[in-house]
């Protein structure tokens, strides 16, 4: 159907009806010159709302759009449909990516709260979590990369002179509050990055310090052993004069 812009290297492909592959987007395009058919509007709204009750309806320059997660319907003149379908497929992908990043970030908040401690004070217990923290940090970088990849497309400037597709794209991006959401996600990511960055810094400091401490403790143990041996020498010298003699009452356990 269409190829997504360069860094994404993805393509929207229309599946035949009954295909076994799971479709990411169900797109219903209705070629019609009139967007004022109440019955059609009601049925399309119902169809889109079946997948998502928060579906949006947009009437725009002779096109009628029903926009929901996973389900999109469009009514427009036959000649206008192909570019509209392409732009809807593209936007649905961005919306999906954005929603997924939002979801993952949302799920990561409890972890972040749990991991906030080591950002302030890193101790032995935190050191054990290092792998887990590193994994979270990597996941976070993954989210950041995903977002960064789609952001240029989400924040594409206004096209002038506009085409219907560009107008629909702008309108939908605006309606889905994509630029705001990107901003919010970036702010959240910054919080995450700040915490995990601090944690990783603390972790490496802690590891470096612990190595030093461990070495000190090993030296202390050796010194203690040496002290013990010296102590024993003193103790045994002190008993050298008193030779133990067998007594008759001692027993063994």
């Amino acid at each position, binding site marked *: 159907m269409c190829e997504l812009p360069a860094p994404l290297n993805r393509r929207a492909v229309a599946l035949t009806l009954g295909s076994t592959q799971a479709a990411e987007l169900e797109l219903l395009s209705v070629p019609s010159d009139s967007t004022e058919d109440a019955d059609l509007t009601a049925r399309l709204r119902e169809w889109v709302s079946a997948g998502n009750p928060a579906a949006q309806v947009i009437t725009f320059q002779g096109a009628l759009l029903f926009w929901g997660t996973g389900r999109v319907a469009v009514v427009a003149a036959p000649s206008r449909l192909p570019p509209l379908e392409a732009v809807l497929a593209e936007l649905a992908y961005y919306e999906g990516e954005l929603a997924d990043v939002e979801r993952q970030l949302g799920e990561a908040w409890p972890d972040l709260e749990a991991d906030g401690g080591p950002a302030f004070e890193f101790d*032995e*217990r935190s050191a*054990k*979590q290092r792998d887990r923290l590193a994994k979270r940090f990597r996941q976070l970088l993954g989210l950041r990369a995903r977002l960064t990849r789609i952001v240029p497309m989400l924040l594409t400037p206004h096209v002038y002179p506009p085409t219907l597709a560009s107008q629909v794209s702008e309108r939908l991006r605006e309606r889905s509050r994509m630029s705001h959401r990107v901003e919010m996600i970036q702010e959240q990511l910054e919080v995450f990055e700040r915490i995990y960055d601090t944690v990783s810094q603390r972790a490496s400091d802690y590891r470096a310090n612990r190595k030093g401490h*461990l070495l000190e*403790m*090993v030296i202390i*143990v*050796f010194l203690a*052993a040496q002290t*013990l*041996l010296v102590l*024993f*020498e003193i*103790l*045994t010298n*002190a*008993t050298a004069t*008193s*030779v*133990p*003699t*067998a*007594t*008759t*009452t*001692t*027993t*063994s*356990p």
Partner: protein
Amino acid sequence: MRHASIDILRTAAIALMVLVHFLENLAGALWTPAGFGAPLFAFLAGVSFRIWVRSQEAKGTSDAAITKVGVRRGLFLFALGLGFNFFVWLPDDLYNWDVLTAIGTGLAVLALARHLPGGFLAFVSAVIFVIAPFLRVQADYDAYWLELYFQCDKTLPEILIGYFSTGYFPLFPWVLFPIAGYVAGKAVYPDPADAGDGPPSVRPLLTWGAVLVAASVALRVVRPYLPDPLPSTILKGWTMFPASPEYVTGVLGIALILFGTLYVWVDRRQKLARFPRLLAVTRTMSRHTLSIYLLHHVLHLWPLWVYGYFSGDTATAYWREAMSIEMAVALTPVCLAVCYLLAWWADRREWPTAESAMRWVCD
């Protein structure tokens, strides 16, 4: 929460100890495998301490409170060991240094050192292992053991030397058993934060156990070929008194293997779930190991002393000469059965026991 594998091991340890004490004290017989009871007992004390610490942490008990109670429990056992020597053996044996004093010291040390990394505690155990024979040489161990039992003057240097090196269960090397138990317990029962996704792997325990057993056998085999004075001073063969390097590595290795194996079979795979009665018996025995340890001594030593005192020259007249080996072996299960019944009753009637006394005093 009870851990069936530990109940079984504790029951085995106490049974072995009853057997070895009956054989030695009543019949004067020494049986090498029976010498495994005390180290296993000490090792399990470390494991139990680990489990107790973990449960306290899970309850949210403060770090300081755990340390305080831990040290108190260690000191309680230490004092109990001294009291045990005084009352169960004889006042003259106050400074014999029983296994309880070694375990008590070990637990007090662990309460303070429990936050140190497991690897470091293992290193400390290794250092204890290495310097123990040198301390013995320095102290002239054999001079304290003239007639197969420990005897010393009641002077401070000798008491200290006995406590550290030459007594029955001197700190060096016996304290390494509770420490090793704690380290092994930490590997199997890690902090919730350290726990991975799956159950902890016991492979390191089994590997270290096998290495230690192999080291024990190797030391035993190469001992005759080593140049003097190594075979006569440092290595001693499989002897419990003194606890020779061969003995320590061997019993520690076996303890690790048993602990790891039973943890997998009994706790994780529930292989013994079909024998609930057996598990109930071991559970009861395990809950009262300390009491049974004290009780069986009272049961077989006090009659000996009383009978010896009234019928012979001295109280110890019949020590090691009271009966035949067969008789002693036969009395062991009887004693264990009596102990079990008393423990069972104690549970039902909530009688005070050594364990409850410890909790009352320390917690």
